[in-house]
């Protein structure tokens, strides 16, 4: 990563222009609506959450200095930091309660954290004092702090109504915003974590090619989400530096475990055995990533690193497929160019599967509706997931009631075991239980996670202090600690 020149003393001042993938009119200023990296970065500059995620996706204190739960993990007490909003008012418990209520507002279904914080029983939440707040859960959950670190959980001022007039506790003060173009913010001198070094922050939107040109042409100092090819080209020159967060997201094929032929666990295993993961990583990720072991979140908290790496075994796969009577048959793989590398990976995987005598036909669907379509359509499809804590991933995708259960993995026993782990307040015990669940998933589940691409950021050599961390964590897209040399 970068920031590896500790000799240079941090300098103050200057303007930082950071370019992110744009979302056009979709871009918003309301911190509770965000879904794009660019929104997250903008909101991170202006607002803060109670809890953030560390580089291993483990909750770390932010506006809450500490928290403790009761034995059932049902009632949580958060102690707030002594900070002020941009308008000079101090942060109070009331602000936290207002923010949570605003997120949960049933009349605003687009508030993103609504479902992850659904367990919160707002009527029983209360302010203990100005700086202590007690939050009660309808369903006990030992991972609750991580949920408060999720997307769209920023703390706003009590009575905050107009998103066009942002007022947060973040390191930068809002000055202007044009959706699809830019947001400009200036240093907030009273920031509790020490004022930012840069004077002005511009967070701009542009697509991949424009980001590359901007950072290479000196029109931006920071470019988010770069491609491996760009990294390879850029590293040959001296104009930009690449900051790579190792294996921070997950690329997978997902098989629906309730549909033939993947309702047969032999077939699922056979497909897992057929994937030439190294080649997929080498070609689709241009070598910038780690091979996957059919599990989400390599390197994150609770990841069972002791499980053996699955290796390619065409002969065994053939035997399994023969048993299932699938040799010579055709299976359709549903993909789309909704995300970079989907179609490429599917095409390449089809070639690998063909070696075992099964034809995998690549079908490309509409990019915009792909996320929704994948839930219902096809038997095997392309899938990627951003960085999030492993328990949250399981909650979202692998339980009977999960809203994004793309593999149709619905097992009451699994649900029950997971629920039991969730109320376990002892972290080590919880980790052990998660380990068992993940082993089951790796062996029987429908997820064929073949790789974990690096998250690549291009920066101008002038820019110092950028951390190589996965997205959605505290230090990603964070600009109050960086400086321009």
């Amino acid at each position: 990563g970068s920031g590896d020149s500790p000799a240079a003393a941090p300098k103050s001042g200057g303007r930082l222009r950071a370019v992110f993938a744009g979302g056009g009119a979709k871009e918003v200023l309301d911190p509770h609506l965000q879904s794009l990296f660019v929104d997250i970065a903008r909101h991170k500059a202006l607002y803060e959450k109670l809890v953030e995620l560390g580089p291993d996706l483990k909750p770390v204190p932010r506006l809450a200095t500490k928290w403790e739960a009761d034995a059932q993990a049902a009632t949580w007490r958060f102690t707030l930091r002594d900070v002020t909003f941009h308008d000079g008012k101090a942060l109070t418990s009331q602000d936290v309660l207002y923010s949570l209520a605003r997120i949960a507002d049933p009349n605003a279904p687009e508030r993103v954290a609504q479902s992850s914080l659904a367990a919160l029983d707002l009527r029983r939440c209360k302010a203990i004092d100005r700086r202590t707040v007690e939050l009660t859960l309808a369903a006990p959950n030992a991972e609750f702090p991580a949920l408060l670190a999720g997307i769209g959980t920023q703390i706003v001022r009590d009575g905050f109504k107009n998103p066009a007039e942002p007022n947060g506790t973040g390191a930068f003060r809002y000055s202007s915003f044009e959706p699809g173009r830019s947001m400009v913010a200036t240093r907030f001198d009273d920031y509790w974590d020490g004022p930012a070094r840069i004077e002005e922050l511009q967070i701009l939107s542009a697509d991949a090619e424009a980001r590359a040109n901007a950072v290479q042409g000196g029109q931006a100092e920071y470019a988010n989400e770069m491609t491996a090819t760009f990294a390879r080209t850029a590293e040959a020159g001296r104009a930009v530096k690449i900051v790579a967060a190792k294996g921070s997201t997950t690329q997978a094929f997902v098989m629906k475990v309730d549909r033939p032929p993947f309702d047969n666990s032999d077939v699922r295993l056979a497909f897992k055995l057929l994937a030439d993961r190294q080649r997929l990583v080498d070609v689709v990720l241009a070598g910038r990533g780690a091979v996957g072991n059919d599990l989400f979140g390599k390197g994150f908290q609770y990841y069972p690193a002791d499980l053996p790496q699955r290796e390619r075994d065409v002969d065994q796969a053939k035997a399994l497929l023969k048993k299932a009577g699938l040799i010579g048959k055709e299976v359709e793989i549903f993909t789309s160019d909704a995300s970079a590398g989907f179609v490429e990976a599917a095409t390449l995987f089809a070639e690998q599967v063909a070696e075992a005598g099964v034809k995998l036909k690549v079908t490309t669907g509409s990019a915009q509706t792909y996320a929704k379509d994948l839930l219902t359509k096809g038997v095997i499809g392309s899938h990627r997931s951003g960085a999030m804590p492993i328990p949250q991933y399981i909650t979202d995708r692998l339980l009977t009631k999960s809203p994004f259960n793309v593999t149709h993995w619905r097992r009451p026993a699994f649900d029950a075991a997971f629920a039991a782990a969730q109320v376990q307040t002892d972290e080590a015990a919880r980790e052990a239980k998660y380990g068992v669940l993940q082993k089951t998933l790796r062996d029987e589940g429908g997820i064929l996670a073949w790789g974990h691409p690096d998250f690549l950021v291009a920066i101008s050599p002038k820019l110092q202090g950028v951390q190589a961390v996965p997205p959605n964590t505290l230090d990603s897209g964070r600009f109050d600690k960086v400086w321009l040399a």
Partner: protein
Amino acid sequence: MRSYAAQRAVLALAQLAVLSILVFVLTALLPGDAADMRFTETLTPDQVARLRSQLGLDEPAIERFTHWFGNVLTGDLGTSLISGGPVADIVKASVGATLVLTLATLTVVVPLAVLLGLVMGTRENGRLDRVITSITLALSAIPDFVIAVVLITLFSLKLGWLPATWVGGRLLTNPALLVLPVAVLLGRTVCLLSRQVRAGTINALNAEYVVQARRLGVPRRQLLLRHVLPNAAVPGVQELARTGDTLLGGVLVVEAIFAIPGFATALVDGVETRDVPVVQGLTLVLAAAALLINLAADLICNRLVPRTELLR
């Protein structure tokens, strides 16, 4: 003349009305709606369903259209399904950049094309004609994005003379932003136009009246400027009106490459996000512009060569 203008105006209004129905049907044919577009890893199906009813997307299509149409008649283009802001604002915000880009391109293209066309036309099949023809043809045969990549690599990344993108730039403070996008758009338009002017010039040069003017001793310069050019310009102007659409296709590519927050990008974004009111609004404005341009072209042609037929 007046009745002609009135006729055109009525026709144009009818066209716009039919067009908006067409656009509505087209967008309705697309899979998914604006609410679906929010379905990512963050909004659950339940949230999406509530959002849909809040946006009124569960109403029948006919109802939505009549509602929208009624509003348009009162001058209200509606609100975006995605950002919630007024469509008029989105149109206004995106029109500017594209307009500047197009106008800048045309200010370079038109004189250049006329000059090249005249030079080629007067030297039909001469060496100069062939050289210019080959160069413009070759230029126009290279895809926009290839030209863009080459220009950016050379002038921005290698030489550092010109900004490579509009990201973070302001046109008002940095007019140099226009140079590369215009250069990219230039090639094909100049080729198309100059070829029309060339053809017009050749036709005019062979016309009996030019031959006769020469016989009556009109000198060459005067001949070209006063006799040949107005007649040669007619196909050029008509082509120019037609070029608008072609140009827009190029503008989209240019907008994408240079990160210009313009019209074409907004349109494609609107389609991708199924933001029907925005697509409708943008198309309406665009179609109105196209109709105006065509009308203007007809009138200009009629002014240049009065006997050009107005209707048909």
